[in-house]
């Protein structure tokens, strides 16, 4: 029993740690401040805890508050299949689908955060999130399936093990990029931040203060951190690497993915969802399908051992 709780505690700590790292990197990219910005996420979190909560006129309080709490819970649940060290907390025959499902549940949570407070900007933000979901859900699924296809298994540890000879990113570059981009879309961050855009005064976040804002913001960064770790596991060979122990490699790769994601994401303006829908269906879906076809043919040719 203690073994289980230790493992769970480790996974939660890893999730929070990855989120903190992502938030700090994001802050550095945004303000151009030096390494001192590393404490800024902690300061922001504390500030949110000091702050009074808010409620609006005739809100749907039950759904609103539940949705706010759901965002960090879902982000942490998605950590169940992300390898910490050389194993995952949940190891089933459908790990990759689990990760996908936790992101899918955000459809409901984020829309409800927009719906809850009975406010115009927030509502528009919630609908923008669904529009983004319609655009990016399928490319994300295809990207995840491609990794599973290469390994012939939907178990994360099997996917990592299958990359002992060749990292998947070599044969699946499109899937790798699309995976990261779609993960950012579901965390409505960077170029996908339209649901929380400045043009709608923060959108789904516009009526949140205090601990509720903290929960949503923390959920977003934990999800992004978990996605970076998952990308390292699915496409960059997880913990494999010379000289250093596996967990160190895993951490280094995750940090690298985080840095690249933040660096690229903050260099771009928001890709407006009304345009992204068409682009996603006519460019990303065929591109990821072709990627899957290439990988399937490689599987038939025995390229993955």
């Amino acid at each position, binding site marked *: 029993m203690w073994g289980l709780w230790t493992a769970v505690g480790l996974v939660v700590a890893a999730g929070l740690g990855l989120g903190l790292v992502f938030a700090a990197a994001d802050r550095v990219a945004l303000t151009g401040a030096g390494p001192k910005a590393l404490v800024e996420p902690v300061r922001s979190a504390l500030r949110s*805890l000091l702050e*009074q909560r808010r409620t609006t006129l005739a809100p749907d309080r039950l759904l609103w508050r539940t949705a706010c709490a759901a965002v960090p819970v879902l982000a942490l649940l998605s950590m169940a299949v992300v390898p910490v060290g050389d194993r995952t907390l949940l190891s089933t025959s459908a790990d990759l689908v689990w990760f996908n499902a936790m992101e899918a549940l955000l459809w409901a949570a984020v829309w409800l955060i927009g719906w809850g407070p009975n406010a115009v900007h927030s509502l528009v933000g919630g609908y923008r999130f669904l529009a983004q979901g319609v655009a990016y859900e399928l490319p994300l699924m295809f990207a995840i399936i491609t990794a599973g296809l290469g390994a012939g298994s939907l178990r994360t540890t099997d996917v990592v093990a299958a990359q002992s000879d060749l990292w998947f990113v070599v044969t699946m570059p499109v899937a790798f990029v699309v995976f990261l981009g779609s993960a950012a879309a579901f965390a409505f961050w960077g170029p996908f931040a339209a649901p929380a855009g*400045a*043009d709608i005064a923060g959108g789904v976040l516009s009526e949140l203060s*205090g601990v509720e804002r903290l929960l949503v913001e923390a959920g977003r960064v934990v999800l992004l951190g978990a996605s970076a770790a998952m990308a390292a596991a699915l496409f960059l060979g997880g913990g494999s690497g010379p000289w250093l122990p596996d967990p160190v490699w895993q951490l280094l790769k995750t940090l690298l993915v985080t840095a690249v994601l933040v660096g690229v994401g903050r*260099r771009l303006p928001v890709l407006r969802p009304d*345009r992204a829908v068409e682009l996603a269906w006519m460019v990303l879906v065929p591109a990821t399908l072709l990627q899957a076809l290439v990988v399937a043919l490689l599987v038939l040719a025995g390229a993955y051992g």
Partner: protein
Amino acid sequence: MDLTGRIRRWALGRPRVLVIDAPGGERFRWQLEDELDRRHWPLALSPADTDLALVLGRPGAQLAAAIELLWSQVPQPRHRQDIAADGDLPAQLDAASVALVDAANRTEPVQPGAQTQLGNLGPEPDDVDDEHAGHSGHEGHHMHHGGDVAGLAMADTAPDRDGLTLDVLRVALGPVLPGWPTGLVLTGSMQGDVLTGVELAWVDGSDDPNHGVLQATPQAVAMDQLARILLVAGWPTAAAAARRARRDLSGSHPQRAAQTQRAAARVASRVRGSRALRWSVQGIGSTDRGMTPAGSAHAAGDVWGGVRHWCDVAAGGEPVPVAGSPRSLTEASILLEGSELAAARLVVATMDLERPATRVETESTGV
């Protein structure tokens, strides 16, 4: 100092700032934003996000009412401060920061609930003489067909552009929104996120004699406009770069002029060269529905054309005239009719609206 007090002080060390500026004080807003950027104090996007509300200039009656409402929406700990143009800006911000920490160490009295506020602040439309029924408008005797719930009416219905009869929501944008022109108010109806029945107006001006004179080069003004567009377009890093360039352009360092020019040109070419921005905003708010031929001398009258125009001016080059960019509020409201909310925000941010030179203060709204 006790531990919780120290924690509070540290946590509030980088307060989030809601800047509310009365018309006429643009130049002063620039200085404030520069100082905030220097301190890494983030700009708040909404009252929920706010610790410090800073009021620039002396707002007229309409803006004062808006500030009162916004202030009621800011959660504790909070501090509101009027920032004076003739004072020492860093000292005023330091004082505001100290006052915020003080505010965090005491409890404010509970403010009246939202429904009461609606009764107190709201204009009682028809039934002012109706013994102030607005306080608890459950009776549903207001003019709206659906009756009121919690003191607020339900949305009306009207046919939309797909021929469906759905709800229309009366909305207002401005005067206080991130990246929104100072003092502009847009009222209209929304179906989904499509704006119809758009009307634009200016709120009353400042009555401060020191305000109203914008002494800045066209280049710096263009850079300011660019910063605003980039904020609305969701590109915060580029917006910060534009604000930095604006600061250098409006500063008086003759010996660094060449350097400043190069930096401004760099920002402008970064924005102009952004394919993602171009893809995202091209064709929005087009005055001629995208019929401008590719090699035309005029920039297309859409948001992208506007961005290019401002980039050219900001880089200190010869600007390409923008075809049919609206200057008056009437033209602008025609252009905004039927546009999506995000598109409308971009169009408004790109427009160079002519504000009446004298302050707009009618007899009835006089203080």
